[in-house]
């Protein structure tokens, strides 16, 4: 019991609050410096999405630090317990309590966004339609039945289940209704496929091709992952080996149990609850320059029950059924006047989309209440003194 009380006191203390804020400042500085050379995505993954960071000092990884993710969890606990510990009934504390609740709500919104939001892009040429959007960074392996007679089943292995593999590590995936087990190994977050040169290590080549790891690009979306895949056909001493690579011109085809499957490493994709058709894309240029002043898209949103025409432009996204589609980019960049253009939409699904706004409103209300209360108390006191 005494340990619990001690933990409670420490967790609710101002010292912990200050320590957390100090580390947040340090990590923000380190993350900002990191992104100069390694890009925003890598810096976010290393400092802001991690529980712990092992910081390199003069090239040596020797300084362990808490990650921002852990610090914000601790801050949430600290603010909650601190509020409970220091709560005193009375109007003088109401405003501060409301502001605290707003901050806690802001932190909670951040956690929900981190854990449960999904973002990617949807790129369409004029006239094209799609109900899927793809991640910028994440990968997945799709094992798709090859069929000519109607819909097929695709088995999906999310990247989170294999992108942690280090050289020499492997993981096996199985499923009862899949005729083979899939062993994945030698994952490289950025790689290119090369012909195996004479004299090179034959164990590393597959079909005379090797996966050559490359340094990570600062811009995370330019990394093309690759890994080795071995399909072990069930109940047969047969294995089929191939390379899965993000830029393969064709899938790795596996035949097992009389069924062919196409294995592809591709960007993680998600389905939208509606279909989007790009009807028209327009752009305007600044006079006398080749720089666009604005660009926008006219789309049709199609559902089984309804169809609606929507105009999406910069700062005017489409918000529908929990998804937000922002006008993000377009191409081809050297399109002639009559060339077909494509439009790229950033797609976000975030349950906590407006929570920061609500949190700010709550904090504002709390602070206004507190300031008004203090002002009234002060004026009353002044009135009593002067009388």
């Amino acid at each position: 019991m005494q340990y619990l009380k001690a933990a409670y006191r420490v967790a609710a203390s101002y010292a912990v609050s200050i320590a957390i804020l100090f580390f947040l400042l340090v990590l923000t500085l380190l993350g900002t410096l990191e992104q100069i050379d390694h890009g925003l995505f890598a810096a976010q993954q290393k400092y802001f999405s991690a529980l712990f960071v092992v910081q390199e000092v003069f090239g040596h990884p020797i300084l362990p630090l808490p990650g921002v993710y852990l610090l914000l969890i601790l801050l949430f606990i600290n603010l909650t317990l601190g509020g409970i510990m220091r709560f005193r009934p009375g109007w003088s504390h109401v405003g501060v309590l409301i502001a605290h609740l707003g901050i806690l709500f802001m932190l909670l919104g951040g956690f929900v966004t981190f854990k449960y939001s999904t973002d990617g892009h949807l790129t369409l040429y004029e006239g094209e339609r799609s109900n899927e959007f793809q991640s910028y960074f994440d990968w997945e392996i799709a094992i798709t039945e090859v069929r000519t007679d109607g819909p097929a089943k695709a088995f999906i292995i999310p990247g989170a289940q294999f992108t942690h593999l280090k050289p020499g590590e492997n993981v096996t995936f199985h499923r009862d209704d899949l005729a083979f087990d899939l062993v994945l190994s030698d994952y490289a977050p950025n790689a290119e496929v090369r012909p195996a040169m004479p004299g090179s290590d034959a164990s590393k080549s597959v079909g005379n091709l090797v996966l050559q790891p490359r340094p990570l690009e600062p811009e995370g979306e330019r990394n093309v992952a690759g890994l080795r895949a071995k399909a072990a056909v069930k109940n047969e001493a047969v294995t089929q080996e191939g390379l899965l690579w993000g830029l393969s011109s064709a899938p790795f085809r596996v035949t097992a149990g009389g069924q062919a499957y196409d294995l592809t490493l591709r960007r993680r994709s998600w389905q939208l609850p509606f279909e989007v058709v790009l009807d028209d894309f327009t752009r305007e240029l600044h006079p006398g320059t080749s720089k666009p002043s604005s660009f926008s898209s006219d789309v049709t949103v199609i559902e089984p029950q309804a169809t609606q025409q929507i105009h999406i432009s910069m700062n005017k996204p489409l918000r529908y059924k929990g998804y937000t589609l922002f006008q993000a980019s377009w191409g081809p960049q050297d399109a002639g006047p009559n060339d077909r253009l494509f439009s790229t939409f950033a797609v976000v699904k975030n349950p906590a989309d407006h929570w920061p706004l609500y949190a700010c409103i709550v904090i504002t209300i709390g602070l206004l209440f507190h300031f008004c209360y203090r002002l009234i108390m002060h004026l009353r006191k002044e009135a009593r003194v002067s009388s």
Partner: protein
Amino acid sequence: MKLQLTHTPARRSLSKLFPLVLSCAAGLALSGCGGSGGSQEITETRTVTNPPSAAAPMGASPASMAMAPAQASFAWEAPAGWTPQPATATRIANFKVDADSDAECYLTVLPGTGGGVEANINRWRSQLSLEPYTPAEMAELPTLKVLEKDALYVGFEGIFTGMGGGEKKEGYKLLGVIFEDGGSAVFVKMTGPAAVVDREKANFESFCASLKKTAATQVASNLPEGHPPIGPTAGSDLPAGHPEIGGAMAPGMDPSAALPQGHPDIGGVVPGTMGDRNDDSQITQWTAPASWTQTPDKPMRLVTYTAGPEGKAECYVTSLSGPAGGVDANINRWREQMDQTPLDAAALEALPKITILGKPSPMIEIEGSFAGMDGQGGEGFMLLGAVCPLEGETLFVKMTGPAAIVKQEKDNFVAFSESLK
């Protein structure tokens, strides 16, 4: 505010809890470690309404390729008698050349250098159980025009062991072309019995000649005014060995206030190879003469104007990444377009200079018979041109048209060129 650290109960509590905190931290750290081995069940499935068919290769659509680095699409004309085979992971085009043998021909494009042209030629030689070429032999290899590039063209006969060093086949021949193109290594290779390969040699060369790049997915790096800069841009900023960015590329994302909080900047990338339009050009403004009329955007040009009666003269600005072949070579290219002989070094040095972006830039005035890149032109034309080499790019300002009109517009041309900024 009084710091709790000075508060005795908290300090005592902290010291009591230290071993517990340390254990928890260690546990959390260890729990973050990935593991090897083990088996997992696949739990996620989807229904695909357009499943892959037996022969369908993986297509490249804007959606699938938009986030990838450069990977152009190709088109070709298959020679008669060649049977298309399914594409594979690296064979974009794949053919069985002869029904009665295992002769095959395929096209492979790999981002990066693919190990290098010479290394791959010697790799092919090792597949035919032949010694590698010496540097002198490599230098004497013939070339074949493929995708407007001079590709090294090789042909040799030997004992074919194939790529996996398997069964040895005597009397086999290999024909191959290999070159680097826009940050990718391109290979076209035909192997088979020597008699078959000799018979199909003309078809091989016509297949190579028929290769074309199709319109590729590209990304706009031209952001609206006020956009913060986004991610990767010109090829000149790419690290050494990085594939060129062109064709299918990562879309440039707008990190404006419209993006959700925490949304990462997404880089737009632009082709920046020599000879490619440089959309990271420093040039963003100019002052055109009032009498000129701006025309719609054309490929490879920053801006295009027409001038003179009925707009018969045309003036445009192009920016190409890097030296783009060099000032002298481009001036002589213009002279060639005007059916004039090239200038020697002394004559090039003596050309008059105008000032573009503070740099003295040679300007040339050529009268003659104009044969433009797009086939337009004729007799009695004039070309005014100025070339300005800058940091990371080369700027070209060019005006062509009937000689009488261009002469009248010369002062306007100079003023326009000098207004670029």
